[in-house]
């Protein structure tokens, strides 16, 4: 399941969705959150997440398809929020269920690495009247290199 939405998500409900009766031996989950990015009070910091409707979902599907091709997975669930977010809000959920932990851990890590660099999302941070677009991090590309055959 792949969802791009403004609404918050419930980790417990997503976890239950990933469970396949009699087959699931491992579930790996990752949740990304908005963290404080300045010394200003929390309420002064806002995030805005823009995406490209039509492309973003396709990018995520491509990443999930690649994970399924690399590891024997039972199910994958990716939820990414867009729109206005505040400090401590959940941004992204990636959950993977599999028979064994190794593939669940690896696929979850792989999907997050690719999501950071190959999915059409852009973050804007603002504090009061000041705002700026977050720049891509070189470390994200380095992290991707780990998965190259």
């Amino acid at each position, binding site marked *: 399941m792949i969802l791009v939405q403004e609404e918050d998500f419930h980790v417990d409900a997503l976890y239950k969705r990933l469970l396949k009766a009699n087959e699931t031996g491992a579930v790996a989950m990752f949740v*990304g959150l908005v963290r404080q990015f300045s010394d200003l009070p929390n309420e002064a910091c806002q995030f805005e*997440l*823009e*995406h*490209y409707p*039509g*492309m973003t979902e*396709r*990018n995520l599907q491509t990443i999930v398809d690649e994970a399924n091709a690399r590891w024997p997975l039972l199910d994958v669930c990716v939820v*990414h929020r867009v729109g206005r977010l505040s400090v401590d809000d959940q*941004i*992204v959920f990636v959950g993977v269920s599999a028979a064994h932990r190794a593939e669940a851990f690896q696929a979850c890590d792989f999907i*997050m690495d690719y*999501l*950071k*660099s*190959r*999915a*059409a*999302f*852009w*973050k*804007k941070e603002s504090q009061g009247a000041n705002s700026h*677009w*977050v*720049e*891509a*991090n070189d470390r994200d590309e380095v992290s991707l290199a780990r998965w190259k055959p």
Partner: protein
Amino acid sequence: MSKVRVVFFASLKERIGQSEYVVETTLPLSIGDLKHLLARQLSQGSALLEKGIQSSIDFEFARDSDTVTELVKEVAFFPPVTGG
């Protein structure tokens, strides 16, 4: 002449001052050539030529060498992605 719908996102959209633009041109044309054409036609279009600007053709990531044909519905330009 054919019409190509071009859309912009994030900081590039703000710098160019519009989210979409329809360009009339002769196709096929490479993404790289389309960038240069737009750079000449749009007042802040030179932002498209900066390092790191990425593109897509009909919702798939593209490179400067990829071709925009008559069948293409939408080309997009945007800065490096920063999700997650």
